[in-house]
């Protein structure tokens, strides 16, 4: 809950900016993505995905999983508008876009976030205790 509070303090301005303009340029979106990554990198060790879970208590595993679902979902909200534009552009233009452009990087991060969410929820549903609260968040 402490980590989730910090996440919202760090990300509320991003949400409000997206709302106002509906579209954030790729360069700015990447900077915002860095803010989100910075939050994730500063999580305590027991919440880091690079470390094994410290125990198998339901509330701990659920909190750990939920933090990342929130992170990846927020990345998707931030970057999906750029991904969609890229797809539409590809549909109408015949020339390939530069693979390393900022917009392409945004699209890649967005697709990765979606993939990570699906894989994480699938894994969670297979291995964890499924209370109604868990099911509400994960299905």
């Amino acid at each position, binding site marked *: *809950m402490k980590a989730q509070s910090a996440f919202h303090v760090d990300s509320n301005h991003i949400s409000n900016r997206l*709302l106002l303009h509906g579209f954030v340029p790729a360069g700015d979106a990447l900077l915002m993505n860095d803010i989100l990554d910075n939050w994730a990198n500063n999580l305590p060790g027991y919440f880091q995905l690079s470390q094994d879970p410290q125990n198998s208590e339901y*509330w701990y595993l659920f909190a750990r999983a939920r933090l990342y679902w929130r992170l990846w979902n927020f990345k998707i909200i931030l970057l999906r508008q750029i991904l969609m534009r890229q797809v*539409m552009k590809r549909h109408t233009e015949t020339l390939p876009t530069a693979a390393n452009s900022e917009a392409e990087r945004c699209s890649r991060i967005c697709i990765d976030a979606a993939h990570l969410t699906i894989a994480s929820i699938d894994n969670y549903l297979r291995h964890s205790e499924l209370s109604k609260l868990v099911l509400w968040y994960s299905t």
Partner: protein
Amino acid sequence: MPNLSLVCPGSTSGVAFLRSLLLWLGNPRLLSESHFRAADLVGESPATLSASSKFTATALSRQIENKLIDAYFENYHVVYPFVHEPTFRAQYHEILPRPVSASWKLLLSTVLALGSWSSGQTQTELDEQLYRRSISLGEDESIFEVANLTTIQSLVLLSNLAQKRNRPNTGWNMLGLATRMALSLGLHREHPSWNVGILHQEMRRRVWWGLFLFDSGASTTFGRPILLPDHNSMDTRHILNIDDEVISFI
């Protein structure tokens, strides 16, 4: 003339994104007006509520209440610790004096409703009636005219239950009211000169941050502006990472 009863999904909401995707694909009708109606704000008039909620006030035995309270603390509280378990249980069993206020009755009713909701896999008639009783108690208390920590706790919990019961706009309105009450009690600030004790301070922080993350999450989900103060205008410390039992004795 636009239909003013439609809710407005902003650009961070999933609905708005799907709508633009469907427009691009040439199928705008797949998301019709009915998807944007504030359906959950219709049909909850006080008359319909009170008629269906009368039975529960006396019908729940102490044994069932105890089970629902246990379910609340086992399933829900471990994720969102907005109520101090030892204090609440002691008040319930009248080891500590039970507050006579309507706010505490509302809190108890909401705890029972969440206990019922969180303990089963499917929705039951009891879930429905406990939820409706809580809404009805909220109305009885004239929640527009009070501001205390217990009412804010109740509203935060009840808003979450409303959202989970597919009444997201009802929950959203409750969070708005809870935010105003919280600001009027100064929950967004530390008050070092107040001699209120560590437990009370900690509960103020838990309630503030609980409200903060629910309201931020709901605003982003619906694509509506986040009206909460930013870090420049609040200094409430983060909650302590300790068990409820420990804090009772410090």
